[in-house]
């Protein structure tokens, strides 16, 4: 599903964010990206979403070299990739249902699709009863569930999550990880950057450790350290 071949990303001032990274992530895998701050986890995720392009190497998503994708095709790539933020990035003036519907509306889906898919995804994340609430009326965990619902409502092949439990307490984090686990069981490939060792240790999934831009560990059913 995702393949990186000798990928190097350098930022201004010769800061090497990723160095010669080669990795292969299969369909339906759940992968944790771990490592200290500045190790390249966020860059890894940004490259998969074509928010950045590497200086060297090639990246394949669903068999397609995304480095060669012309600009107008990038939005269509992103429709196959859900994105979950650490700080949720919910629209405060929209209700839960409207926040989720927004993701469908801006890719041109009509009311019929929206009316069918939004309640279904809210049911999946356990927020059916709160679909008319505004984000400020929800707890942090509930807001992250809305963010996940928005990322997954279009049923993407891949879900990228950048520190999704970073702002949550341990108990709430467990609930979020269960939800991501269910999404993964449906067949979605999940790549999650995290600092949260308890989450990684409890899930026992594949762990890719980055350090100063290099892959220093790639372990099936691994732990944080």
């Amino acid at each position: 599903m995702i393949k990186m071949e000798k990928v190097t990303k350098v930022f201004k001032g010769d800061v090497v964010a990723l160095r010669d990274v080669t990795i292969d992530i299969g369909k339906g895998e759940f992968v944790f990206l771990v490592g200290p701050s500045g190790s390249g986890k966020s860059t890894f995720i940004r490259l998969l979403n074509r928010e950045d392009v590497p200086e060297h190497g090639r990246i394949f998503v669903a068999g397609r070299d995304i480095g060669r994708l012309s600009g107008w095709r990038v939005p269509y790539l992103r429709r196959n990739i859900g994105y979950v933020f650490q700080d949720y990035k919910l629209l405060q003036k929209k209700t839960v249902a409207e926040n989720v519907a927004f993701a469908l509306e801006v890719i041109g889906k009509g009311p019929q699709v929206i009316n069918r898919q939004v309640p279904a995804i809210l049911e999946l994340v356990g927020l059916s009863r709160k679909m008319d609430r505004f984000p400020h009326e929800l707890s942090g965990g509930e807001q992250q569930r809305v963010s996940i619902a928005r990322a997954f409502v279009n049923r993407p092949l891949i879900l990228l999550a950048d520190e999704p439990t970073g702002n949550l307490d341990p108990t709430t984090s467990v609930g979020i990880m269960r939800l991501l686990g269910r999404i993964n069981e449906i067949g979605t490939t999940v790549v999650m950057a995290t600092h949260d060792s308890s989450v990684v240790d409890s899930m026992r999934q594949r762990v890719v450790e980055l350090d100063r831009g290099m892959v220093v560990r790639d372990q099936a059913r691994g732990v944080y350290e």
Partner: protein
Amino acid sequence: MFSFRYVLRETGQNLWRNILLAVATVVTVGVSLAMFGGFMLFQVAVDSATARWQDGVELIVWMNTDVGTDEDASVRNQLDESPGVERWEYVDRAQSYEEFKEFFEDTPEVLEIFTAEGVPPYFRVVPTDPDPDVVEELGSQFKGKPGVRTVTFAGDVIRDVQNLSNRAGRVLFIGSIILLGASTLLILNTLAVAIGNRRTEIEIMRLVGATKWFIRVPFMLEGLVQGLLGAVVAMTSNALLRNYVIDQFSDADGLQLLAGFKVDDSAMLQVNLLVVAIAVGVAVIGSNLAVAMHLNE
């Protein structure tokens, strides 16, 4: 695929969120276009009032309505041979009657009295030297000639009106160009604020796969709406200017020159279309600059 309802809703919300800035933009665009429209209307009105005296024509030789062929030929010969005449143009009875009808179109009672036979043909004469004394001397050579009814001169009033119109027109034109530049920048600024207010939305839109144009169109439409509302302000101003200023001049008694000081419907339509076209141009430039500078995908 674009959702028409989505685009309209987002454009409306953008305008509403920045309502004060949007109003300021519409007023500025409106004032600058109103100045431009005013400049155009006064030019049209002055041109209408001084139509016979355009392009350096300093004197007109009016012929009798029943002028004979020999008399007509004699005046033509004299105009051809006179070293004081640079060029001349003959306006026959039919053309003269058309001009007459246009001149008095608002006063049908005058038109009822005259027929084509009652309107004289004339020669428009451009002298080699526009000095008033030389022109008067030239005109005196035609006065009293057989078939010549009278000779009229452009005179100081017409030249003063034309000069004043040119100068005032230049000031209005330059002023409106400066204001139109300001309007473009104001549209750019309003959209930059709108884009800033919706940064999170835009980021989400990009990441869930909205196309570049889907993100851009509501902002560009917002600029266009501001430009078009400005055009409506300017067209209202144009209508007021025409009905309550220019038409008042032409109704003034005793000033024959001002009788022709008017703007007909077709000229008014042309000015208004130009105003709308400029409004669209200003909006498109401002919007494009804004999205290019602040919506870098």
